């Protein structure tokens, strides 16, 4: 699979589905763990948006950097962060990828160049400009993929970051996950122009809007964008239009939207759609889907067991890493 064309072979298709299912199952169990008070704090789930993380991540290499938001379980899983480390993090255990200090909103995984998990809306965009600058100055052929919600477009950081990345032609892939709401505020109540990908023109940044619920479309668009970046075309903006079918966080009564709207989007959910298409096109066998679902369940159960068995960091270590002794190699 490369360049502008996807070889939609059997394994690839199954892999895309499996990745989305892994995320979905992981988060279903997260919600359960939240109810059981194993997970606390803010928990932002990704239901309905899985195609974006999965599609984009397929277009990246391990050398690339990924910068995400507080709603980043999907990106982390698609990027290969082990579920065990992820779940242990959510449980606040020292075996978690951030020793339990970060929690759901701050997933970091150095080995996978997964650089947050940022809970300040828009806060990750400048960082991505920086990793791209650092990579370029060191002659690395790496892209910095920066995920953010359409709410981040309201922030000055969006503007400053797009301009800086474009001005210096840095290898940044800006991925806007437009799910039409920032918490309870509808896009049209926050942005005077709701066509986000069109805003890129103000910076001379090439952009594309894509159906964010279509994993193949996302992957294709991401490959095009990453290809353009690697070819020296400067930063690119990908607007993925999608919908969050669950509440914003675990504290949201969803007063701001209709049940019918949510239902309609559920019917267009990325997993349902892709799976239906695969099945109706006879591209997968029945038991393959069941198998990958079972595998996902098993993987998540193992992650929960791992997290359960984990330990809480020693209190003496509370202040460790506030000041670093060295730059990790």
């Amino acid at each position, binding site marked *: 699979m490369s360049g502008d064309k996807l070889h939609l072979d059997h394994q690839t298709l199954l892999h895309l589905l499996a990745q989305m299912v892994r995320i979905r199952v992981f988060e279903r169990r997260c919600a359960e763990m939240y109810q059981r008070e194993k997970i*606390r*704090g*803010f928990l932002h789930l990704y239901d309905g948006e899985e195609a974006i993380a999965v599609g984009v991540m397929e277009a990246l290499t391990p050398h690339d950097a990924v910068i995400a938001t507080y709603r980043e379980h999907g990106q982390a899983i698609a990027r290969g962060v082990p579920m065990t480390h992820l779940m242990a993090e959510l449980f*606040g*255990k020292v075996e978690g990828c951030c020793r*339990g*200090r*970060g*929690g*759901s*909103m*701050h997933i970091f995984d150095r080995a996978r160049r997964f650089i947050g998990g*940022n*809970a*300040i*809306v*828009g*806060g990750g965009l400048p960082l991505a400009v920086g990793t791209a600058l650092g990579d370029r100055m060191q002659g690395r052929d790496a892209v910095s993929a920066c995920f953010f919600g359409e*709410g*981040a477009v*309201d*922030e*000055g950081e969006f503007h400053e970051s797009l301009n800086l990345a474009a001005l210096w032609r840095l290898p940044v892939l800006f991925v806007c996950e437009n799910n039409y709401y*920032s*918490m*309870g*505020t*509808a896009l049209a*109540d*926050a*942005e005077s122009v709701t066509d986000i990908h069109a805003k890129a023109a103000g910076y001379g940044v090439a952009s594309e809007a894509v159906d964010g619920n279509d994993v193949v479309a996302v992957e294709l668009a991401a490959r095009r964008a990453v290809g353009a970046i690697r070819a020296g075309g400067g930063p690119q903006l990908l607007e993925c239009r999608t919908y969050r079918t669950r509440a914003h966080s675990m504290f*949201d*009564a969803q*007063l*701001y939207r209709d049940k019918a709207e949510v239902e309609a989007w559920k019917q267009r959910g990325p997993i349902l759609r892709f799976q239906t298409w695969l099945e109706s096109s006879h591209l997968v066998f029945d038991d393959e889907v069941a198998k990958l679902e079972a595998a996902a369940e098993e993987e998540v159960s193992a992650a929960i067991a791992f997290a359960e068995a984990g330990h*809480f*960091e020693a*209190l003496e270590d*509370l*202040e460790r890493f*506030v000041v670093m002794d060295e730059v990790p190699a």
Partner: protein
Amino acid sequence: MTVITYREACKQALRAALVADPRVFMMGEDIAAYGGCYAVSKGLLAEFGAERIRDTPLSESAFVGAGIGAAMAGMRPIVEIMTVNFSLLALDQIMNNAASIPHMSGGQFAVPLVIRMATGAGRQLAAQHSHSLEGWYAHIPGLRILAPATIEDARHMLAPALADPNPVLIFEHVMLYNVEAELDERIDAVDITHASIRRAGTDVTVVTYGGSLPRALAAADTLAAEGIAAEVIDLRVLRPLDMTTVAASVARTHRCVIVDEGWKSGSLAAEVCARLVEMVFYELDAPIARVCSAEVPMPYAAHLEQAALPNAGRIVAAVRQVVRPA
């Protein structure tokens, strides 16, 4: 007497302000359709409409600046910054415009603006969502800083804040919203100038404010059982500080512990300590002690977070040390 939550007290205050003065309006993130991140403004949109209860884009600098401009144009805006954690994005507007314009313009313009925000830790929201910066904001001349710690203050501080011709920042601690208490309906106003002695005592003065007040009161209970009578002072107003009340108390008790959820270095507790040294040094029978947050970005894990925060146990220990040094 009715029992209400702190959240409800905040809401009643907002509603009363909106009813009382047509120049009052609210703006902030998710205050209208969503009902407020901590549900404080739930229902106000329906009652007052979208002109006066305004959802804003996620543009902290712009809508805080717009609040300043609207105040200068004759309105009485109540701007909500969802939480103090996001206020850094608006700090330039707060310090360089709101706090500076009156003096810098030679008194031509006032900025009668109220900015409310939630503050504090304790909900496992981790480093970027657990700041307690109200004491830090108290460094800025031109601002008045309020920290309602009781239902009464939550209910009544807003009116005088709106009547103040100066920018007033109100910090509501996230751990207080669900606290319930009786609201004495015979009281219909509070001042925003004085500290308040929440519990009288003779052996030591415990100075605190906001989310740490319940911790200090709990500590005082424990200490009472040991025969140590702690006087607990709620600063209420973090700028300008009412040091007269604090110093008078310390002049009686001769000992002082300051409890503050801010990081210790450069905390408001340091300022209170320095002022006491300036004012009543010769009355002190023991070093002043501080119980503050550990100097760490707040960790997510509950046990680490609790270890980082001031709590009754640490306050009790600090008081014991001050009263009966080992």
